[in-house]
């Protein structure tokens, strides 16, 4: 029979909340369910429990005991993310994982234990590893190992912090014997019959002869009896991994400014990136869903140039987007969704120039994207046409480096032109032949941030005619001149032949 490990997070609603707000763990705090006077404590921190706050107490009763009790409502968003994080932590150890309930996960560990066969106690070591991965995911889990589902769950519930509780193979029935029959969750009719027989514990049921049970209680009774004896051959139900990773939070009060939102968002994105890191994935696109006050949802999606798992970059992107398009109302909840993708891979060259590390490159590209905004970084691409100012950007994806570094060749430098985008409009004095003699920026064009194109023309060469798109609605027809201004540099000017206006669109440098 397969060996199973149960990963159990005690007080799961509280643990999920503390994962999002770790600083709350040091205070007397409780998670409550319900509104107003009907709010009841679901789970409380150690400090609160020490003061007498118990599960099921109303918030008013709890506050009588502890006036400074910090109360938080149940946060389904946090709980869902925590449950997913627990499953992902378990999947780091074994691919066969089933979620029994939020905060309880079962996994098959035969293969994983076989890998640790060199160890003196592979199951114990595996149990400790499970605790570690859960703690890395922000959840204080307990681990039980047994050969049946129920025995593993019960062992996990009774395990200590950090140390797994192990039920040896064959000892499942004994470990379950003292538990009340209700732990088997029998059907109502079965429960009534067993109660009439005077069977109150699992051990009492296990001691009854199996054939007699099967003949009197049928197939359902036989299955129940097998579970009571620690025999549970049901395989784990496989889980389809979600296509997106999600982290979020429901807020205690609506937020109207960006700064406190960014503080909470940073923590959520940190958790999201830790999960991506655990899976060896990067975030290819980030979805933001904002729950607005009083109702409504603002959803937006941000595409990234390359998969990244850097929380700071994702936060910056979210900040830029929210600053550019603020939500129309106060925010009372949010969720970040990461569309995961494999990070770029590359084969490093042995003798050629070093290749950029794909992971670092992805982070750099995402940072640039966040810093400069869309269409401000990438590889330049040549564009068909004749207008000098034309340009395009494509995603930066350099080809692999050559296998061997090329010997440097002596190069002839070529004169480069700085393109002025947009062109600077000029007033130009021309001679009788139409050659420019003096230039100055038109009134209003002179700006502290534009280069100053002004002065007597010392040398002028031209004109060169450029015509493009004469068949289109916006044809371009220009006459180009290269001019040298006295001690003011070399410029490329053009006259728009349709309007007669002059512009400088480049500086030779």
């Amino acid at each position: 029979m397969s060996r199973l490990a149960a990963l159990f997070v005690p007080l799961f609603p509280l643990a999920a909340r503390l994962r999002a707000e770790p600083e709350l763990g040091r205070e007397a705090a409780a998670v409550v369910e319900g509104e107003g006077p009907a709010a009841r404590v679901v789970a409380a921190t150690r400090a609160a429990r020490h003061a007498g706050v118990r599960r099921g107490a109303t918030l008013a009763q709890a506050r009588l005991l502890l006036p400074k009790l910090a109360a938080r409502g149940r946060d389904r968003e946090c709980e869902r993310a925590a449950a997913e994080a627990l499953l992902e932590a378990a999947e780091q150890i074994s691919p066969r994982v089933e979620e029994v309930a939020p905060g309880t996960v079962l996994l098959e560990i035969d293969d994983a234990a076989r890998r640790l066969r060199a160890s003196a106690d592979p199951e114990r070591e595996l149990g400790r590893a499970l605790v570690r991965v859960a703690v890395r995911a922000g959840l204080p889990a307990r681990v039980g190992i047994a050969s049946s589902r129920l025995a593993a769950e019960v062992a996990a519930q009774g395990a200590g912090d950090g140390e797994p509780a192990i039920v040896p193979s064959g000892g499942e029935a004994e470990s379950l014997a003292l538990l009340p029959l209700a732990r088997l969750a029998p059907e109502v009719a079965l429960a009534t019959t067993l109660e009439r027989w005077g069977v109150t514990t699992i051990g009492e049921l296990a001691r009854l002869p199996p054939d007699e049970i099967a003949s009197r209680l049928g197939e359902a009774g036989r299955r129940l009896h097998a579970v009571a004896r620690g025999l549970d051959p049901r395989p784990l139900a496989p889980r389809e991994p979600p296509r997106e990773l999600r982290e979020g939070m429901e807020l205690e009060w609506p937020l109207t400014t960006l700064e406190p939102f960014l503080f909470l968002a940073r923590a959520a994105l940190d958790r999201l990136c830790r999960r991506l890191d655990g899976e060896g994935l990067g975030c290819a696109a980030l979805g933001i869903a904002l729950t607005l006050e009083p109702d409504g949802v603002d959803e937006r999606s941000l595409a990234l140039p390359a998969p990244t798992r850097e929380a700071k970059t994702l936060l910056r992107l979210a900040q830029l987007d929210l600053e550019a398009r603020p939500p129309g109302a106060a925010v009372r909840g949010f969720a970040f969704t990461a569309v995961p993708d494999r990070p770029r891979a590359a084969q490093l060259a042995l003798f050629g120039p070093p290749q950029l590390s794909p992971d670092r490159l992805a982070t750099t590209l995402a940072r640039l994207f966040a810093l400069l905004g869309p269409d401000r970084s990438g590889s330049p691409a040549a564009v068909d046409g004749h207008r000098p100012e034309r340009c395009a950007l494509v995603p930066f994806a350099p080809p692999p480096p050559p296998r061997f570094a090329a010997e440097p060749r002596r190069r002839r430098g070529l004169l480069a032109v700085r393109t002025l985008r947009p062109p600077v409009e000029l007033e130009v004095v021309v001679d009788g032949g139409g050659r420019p003699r003096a230039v100055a920026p038109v009134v209003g064009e002179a700006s502290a941030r534009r280069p100053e194109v002004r002065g007597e023309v010392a040398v002028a060469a031209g004109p060169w005619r450029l015509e493009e798109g004469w068949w289109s609605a916006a044809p371009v027809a220009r006459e180009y001149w290269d001019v040298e201004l006295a001690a003011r540099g070399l410029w490329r000017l053009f006259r728009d032949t349709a309007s007669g206006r002059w512009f400088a669109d480049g500086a030779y440098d």
Partner: protein
Amino acid sequence: MIGPSPNLSRAAVEMALAEPLRQIDARARTPAARRAEVEAWLARAASPLAARVRTMRELQAAATPPEPAAWSAALPAVAALFPAGLPRGELVEVAARRSAGRFGLVLALVAAATASGENAALVDLGDALDPQGAAVTGVALSRLLWARPRDLKQTLAAAESLLGGGFPLVAVDLGLPPVPGGRGAEAQWLRLARAARAAPALLVVSAPYRVCGVAAGIALTLAAPRARWHGAGREPRLLAGLEARLAPARPQDGEEGAEVERTLRLAAS
């Protein structure tokens, strides 16, 4: 001899170290000789400083300098000053007035790097790159990352990200004057110089006037620019190119070379 307090900031220690190390660089011809000189200097230096700086990555890098960027010696004017190529891990500042060939020099370096199979990044504050012209210059566009910041703050942040990203050449072009906020950012330039040293990457800053201050490991200028024209007088003219003299801005920034070889010549086509 330097005798600072052990409470010196890291930046202050680096600045104190810069000059002695530069003098050692000028004397030592081989890495082994350089290492010996550095160790001897440390033994002579005041003990709190020596204890402090021995742990610094920058000093380790100084003791075992990275290979120079050999491809940068492809340009005759650069090769005249740096026969082995510009040193990696340095901030090289090129300052020149307009139409002195500054942008042409930057593009020539980018072309040399990308042609040798390395990747390069151009942080283009003036948004001045003409991709078609760059391709003609020899730039492998697919190996070039073009960042188009809007102001100096974005420029510095983008350059730092690119240095952290492992680009072996990061060229920062500050465009035509005036550079908004071009002066007064010495601390940020020091930070960039440190990032270049840690990478180690060649960081080339092209500016209309000197902006990097003491952060520049090598400061060069393009002096006496002159446009060359075909034709004379009232004949039809044609721009043939321009030339300027590439010279170190400070005595310690280059070795003496043949004057004619230091002339940067850029042809119009």
